[in-house]
């Protein structure tokens, strides 16, 4: 059998890669993809704990389902925002979106 640790480390790695994408990508769509990776990593974690420890309970599964919903919502709104911003400023580069510069 596969130890739980494998899953956990795999998910941690996936999470970190996704995070790097969010932090380092110039393109906002790229950042969004990083976020998707992170959410997937979370789901792996949730399912892993469910499978190894709490199979009788529904909590983990429900959480996964809700993460799916949140991910879908996030993607929809995120992409719509990006397209809206793109229309106004003809760019989606995070480093050029500097309205918050102090």
């Amino acid at each position, binding site marked *: 059998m596969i130890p739980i640790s494998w899953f956990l480390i795999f998910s941690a790695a*996936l999470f970190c890669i996704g995070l790097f994408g969010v932090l380092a990508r110039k393109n906002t769509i790229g950042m969004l993809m*990083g976020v998707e*990776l992170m959410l997937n990593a979370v789901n792996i974690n949730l399912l892993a704990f469910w499978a190894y420890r709490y*199979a009788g309970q529904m909590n983990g599964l*429900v959480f996964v*389902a809700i993460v799916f919903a949140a991910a879908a919502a996030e993607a929809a709104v995120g992409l719509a925002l990006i397209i809206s911003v793109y229309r106004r400023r003809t760019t989606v*580069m995070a480093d050029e979106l500097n309205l918050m510069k102090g």
Partner: protein
Amino acid sequence: MITGLQAFFLVNALITLFAAVKVVSSRKLVHAALWLVLALMGVAATFAMLGSRFFSVIQVFVYIGAIATLIIVAVMLTRNSMEDVGPQVNRGWWLPLVVVVLLFVGLVVVLSGWGDFGLSTRTVGAEGENVMELGKALVDPNGFVLPFEIASALLLGAMVAAIYLATDRKEGKR
């Protein structure tokens, strides 16, 4: 020794992680999106390995079928300005890398301190999850009906917001 299942996991994990690395590093965004599809499929396989056939399928439907497609469309819509010139990561990319590596190390360290880290016996049976139970739990007033409803509202709100944001008001079309 490594069992067949373990080997499959390792291969799958390596492919997935490689694909993930390509997602965050590809120069061309379209390529990154395609790599994302691959990574998501790997995750779907992982779900199946964890005994959740249901979510594995959902993963394919929702993520690959919907979200990834959406991303590809968005990439194409915003394409002209970013004919993928120049580096696709910020100049100080090493700093996030350091942080991320530190985070990974920290996570592993913390996890390794956990008592059940080496746990290898599953409690879930070969039949996988009971989708019927999950469905009941989601609409049970004593269960998760509230989060479920909130999630529904969230989706609705997201849909409205997405339509609103993406409507081109400049041209005055409805």
